[in-house]
């Protein structure tokens, strides 16, 4: 029996998979926003089932900062830098999407081996979605040449971990939760600023071309 | 006359006889070789003691040395002669000998080396290319024969259980010589010493000391710059070395015979001098019959010598087991 939380996080995982398939930045950002919104929703459901008010704030923060703020910021960045499309690296996007779907299935198998979360609200699917998001994020990072794409990939990984934590544990300490969120935001800001610098110095934001430091 | 006096007299006579041998045998050897070669070439040849007379004549002549030379040249002659005299005293190349100190075989071999080093240095001192050629070849020959000579002596040492040549050549070890291998060892070692002495002394078939082409020669090239007394001493030292080596070979053969037939001290004494003479004559014959080996073939020739010694040494090492 699939709970609403499971449904939300699986939705997020599938949205992330779809994100791999396209190189359009705007589409990617929309998908990321939708995905994060799903996660915020899942948080809300969790808050409801555990009747924990703290989670509600977190859900709101996620919806506000991550689902809306970050895509907007990155979208603004891409407008500023006048890049709309990634070139793609290593493997072609459709192929990468298939790969992420296979990885989704694989993570389904993988998480079977985990002991069932004793008190958490969700079952296997939460862990599956978390691990799958993690893999998807890695695939995004590996298949994007633009700096923004890489940031996006990293954000997806972060989402995956959050989903995992949300579904597999019974409430991380609030302090930690806030710290994580803060760190991530600062991280995104710093990398976003760096993207501008890269554009300024190299006149492109293709990180695959940053290979002057090597042996 | 008391026993002590008799003893003293014996010592004196031994010494006198021995000194006579040291003085006379080397020129005699040279003379015999020359005479034999002359006879084989249908010539009368010089008298037997002509080499001695030559040496005496040289002693009277003045000396010429090169301005390039340092003191090393004359020093080398002195040292070589002195070493040869000491060696002659220590080495049992004759069956009769006055008292001598421990003649360890390794010591003897290295005393020969001392003489060789000084000969070589003397040859290099003049800055002459001939001397250097000779020295370079001599050093090569030295490398080739030294193991053979040493191993031959070691083989003898092994079955007498000592490295002291006095004991090895003491004619007193026959009580345990039931082993049939013993005369064989003596013979093998004798041949080995004889052949290695041919190389060591740079005689045929390794080198022809009677040509006049210094470029090809060994010993004669080394002493090219020597003259007068210096030359006389070098020649004498060389002849003495020859006698010692031939003497050692002869001793080996005599011991081989002594292992089979019992003989008295007088016979042994006569046989040892006679042996040297016979060896000298046969060397003369050999020199008349053979041709000089190509220089590159010399190692092959020496290989025979070494293998002879090795064979003797292995046999000796093997038979030693029974005794101990």
């Amino acid at each position, binding site marked *: 029996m699939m709970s609403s939380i499971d449904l939300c996080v699986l939705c997020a995982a599938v949205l992330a998979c779809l994100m791999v398939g396209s190189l359009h930045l705007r589409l990617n950002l929309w998908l990321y926003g939708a995905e994060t919104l799903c996660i915020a929703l899942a948080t809300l459901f969790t808050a409801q089932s555990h009747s924990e008010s703290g989670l509600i704030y977190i859900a709101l923060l996620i919806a506000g900062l991550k689902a809306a703020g970050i895509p907007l910021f990155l979208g603004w960045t891409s407008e500023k830098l006048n890049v709309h499309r990634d070139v793609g690296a290593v493997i072609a996007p459709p192929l990468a999407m298939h790969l992420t779907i296979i990885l989704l299935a694989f993570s389904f198998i993988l998480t079977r081996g985990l002991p069932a979360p004793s008190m958490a609200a969700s079952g296997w699917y939460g862990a599956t979605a978390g691990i799958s998001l993690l893999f998807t994020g890695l695939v995004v*990072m590996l298949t994007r040449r633009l700096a923004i794409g890489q940031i996006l990939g990293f954000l997806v990984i972060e989402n995956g971990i959050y989903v995992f934590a949300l579904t597999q544990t019974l409430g991380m300490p609030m302090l930690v939760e806030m710290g994580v969120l803060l760190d991530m935001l600062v991280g995104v800001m710093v990398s976003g600023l760096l993207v501008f610098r890269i554009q300024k110095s190299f006149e492109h934001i293709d990180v695959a071309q940053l290979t002057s430091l090597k042996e | 006359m008391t026993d002590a006096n008799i003893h003293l007299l014996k010592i004196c006579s031994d010494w006198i006889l021995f000194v006579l041998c040291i003085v006379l045998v080397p020129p005699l050897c040279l003379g015999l070789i020359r005479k034999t070669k002359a006879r084989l070439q249908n010539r009368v040849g010089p008298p037997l003691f002509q080499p001695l007379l030559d040496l005496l004549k040289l002693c009277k002549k003045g000396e010429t040395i090169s301005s390039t030379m340092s003191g090393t040249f004359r020093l080398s*002659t002195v040292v070589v002669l002195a070493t040869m005299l000491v060696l002659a005293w220590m080495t049992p190349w004759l069956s009769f000998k006055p008292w001598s100190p421990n003649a360890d075989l*390794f010591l003897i071999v290295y005393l020969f080396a001392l003489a060789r080093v000084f000969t070589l240095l003397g040859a290099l001192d003049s800055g002459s*290319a001939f001397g*250097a050629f000779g020295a370079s070849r001599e050093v090569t020959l*030295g490398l080739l024969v030294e193991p053979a000579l040493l191993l031959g002596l070691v083989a003898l040492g092994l079955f007498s259980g000592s490295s002291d040549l006095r004991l090895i050549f003491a004619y007193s070890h026959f009580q345990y010589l039931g082993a049939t291998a013993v005369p064989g060892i003596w013979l093998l070692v004798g041949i080995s010493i004889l052949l290695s002495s041919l190389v060591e002394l740079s005689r045929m078939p390794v080198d022809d000391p009677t040509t006049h082409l210094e470029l090809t020669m060994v010993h004669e090239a080394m002493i090219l710059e020597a003259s007068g007394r210096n030359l006389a001493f070098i020649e004498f030292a060389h002849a003495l070395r020859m006698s010692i080596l031939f003497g050692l070979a002869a001793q080996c053969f005599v011991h081989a015979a002594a292992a089979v037939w019992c003989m008295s001290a007088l016979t042994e004494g006569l046989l040892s001098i006679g042996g040297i003479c016979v060896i000298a004559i046969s060397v003369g014959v050999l020199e008349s019959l053979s041709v000089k080996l190509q220089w590159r073939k010399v190692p092959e020739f020496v290989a025979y010598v070494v293998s002879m010694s090795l064979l003797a040494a292995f046999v000796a090492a093997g038979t030693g087991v029974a005794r101990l």
Partner: protein
Amino acid sequence: MNAPVIFLESVVFLMLAALAAFVLCQKKDVSDKALSFLLCAIAAGAMAALCLTWNQQFLFETPAPFLLGVFPLTFRLDGLSRLFLMLLSLILFSTGLFSPGYLKHLKEKISGGQYWLSFLLFSLSMFGVVLSADAITFIVMWEVMSLSSVALVASDHTHHLVQKSALIYLGATRIASGLLCGGFLWMHSLCGSWNFADWNFASPQAIFPALLILLGFCIKAGVWPFHIWLPYAHPAAPATVSALMSGFMIKIPIYGLIRILVQGGLYAPEITNFAFVLGAISAFWGVLFALVQNDLKRLLAYSSIENIGLILLALAISLKAKAANLPVVADIAMTAALFHCFNHGLVKSLLFLSVGAVDCQAHSRDLHKLGGLAKKMPWTMACFFLGSFSICSIPPLNGFASKWLIYQSLFKSTLMYGSYLERGISLATICLLSAVGALAIATFVKAMGVGFLGMSRSHSAEHAEEASIGMKASQSLLVVLCVGLGVFASSALKIISQLAVMSPDLTSGTAIDFPLPIPMLTGLLITTCLAIYVIFLQSSKVKIFKTWDCGFGPLSAKTQASSDSFAQPLARIFRPFLRYETNSTIKGRDRRHFPEEIAVEVKIVSILEQRIYLPSLAMISYLAKGMAKLQAGSIHLYLLYVCSTLVILLLLGTVL
């Protein structure tokens, strides 16, 4: 006054001296003399301390604040270390005498402060290595010794070749200490102690650590096939340093072998046979390559390899004999090894110092540029000659005495061993040793004859002058020691066996018989020589003329045999080992008969270097390059590494 105090004082004294070196090095002339004097004083002090405490033994552990991090430094002075320290003090003393004169000509090339600092550290650490009683003190002193000697080898570091030599040496010495560390750690895990005295190599598990230790020491000692560094390092270093390195430093591994393996009761036949073979081969290989060298120092370096081989051989004979229960042979061989160490130390430092004097005065060590020094530098020549005689083991010098002992041990083992195989091997070794001896004679006759006799081959050799008094004095001191030890070998041997008995498990204490009448023979030889000279040669009329030139007019120095041509007949015989190649090119019209220019080049290719060392270096380099390709600069690749590491770790997690 008790022994530890004396020793600590001399050690502290040395440390102060090292500091003083830095202060004094501003004024070079003063500092060279002052520091040399200091060195002599230290050496004399150490010598006096050793003699004063002759019958005492001590074990000393540094008190709490003077620790090596967590370990105390432990020192032990017993018969064995006393013997080696005496050698060290003697060599230090003579290098101290030699230094001021010698360093003058290196003034522009080397920095005095660095040189003296390293030199004093080097001396200090050598004292330390020999005195150390546990593995940690040993390895610490050992590494300090290695590093400071590398710094010394690189004294004149502006030359490319010097740099290369120092680095080769550095690599070799690091590999050696790596092996040693491995062996020590292994032994520690077996025996649970760092103390050498607690180590027992008799157990079968101890074979591998013993092998590691043996290999480590062999590398440092320059035993075939690990000798490659030695002929590079010695020529590059200043003569005083090569004298110390060749004279003493390469004996330290031998000391270590005795201290650790022999006293640890090693008897595993695999190890002893291995050491035996290595010793035999290095004796032969070393002298063979020494023969064809043209640089005097390189020649001496190869000759060191030969002698180290002989010492190792003697040690192996001793160990084998001990295992076969032949204490007489074992004792003779052990004493031979010790005595040869001592003798070779003295002789080799003498020879290096003489060559240093030649280098200093004639500005070359290349045999192609020397010659005719006999008249210019007679004193140095006499010293070099006597040293050469000793190293060729010509009686009555000390080299002969120790070589004789080695021969005796082989002779006795031929007599005593039960198995035919062992006898055969001993016999074959005698044969090999005599060939080695003959080759050594060839080598050193070449060095003496071409280097000192005949006509000068270069302008600088022609204008050479006799070395300074200090240099002469230091050489003469060593010559006197060499001759004295040779002539009075039986007394020397008594002292050595006495010292050997004073350390545990070294010999069984049988008296070493040295029956040779060397003093008498020496006297007789000298009297005979004098007699012949006084009676006959002195009175002979001597006319000075020129060397016979076949009537072609004055001889040029080039007509003399060169170092190459002298060695050629022998080198030819051993062509397969030496890779001896002579390339001659003749230029000119109708080339054979009317040559205008003839160039002959002799090349010796080191098989080991070409076939083994360079390829293995290339392999490491290849690996390193392959590794460097991993760091390709692409961030995608780097992320992929992270992913694959994750996969590997997860797999490992399921396995473990």
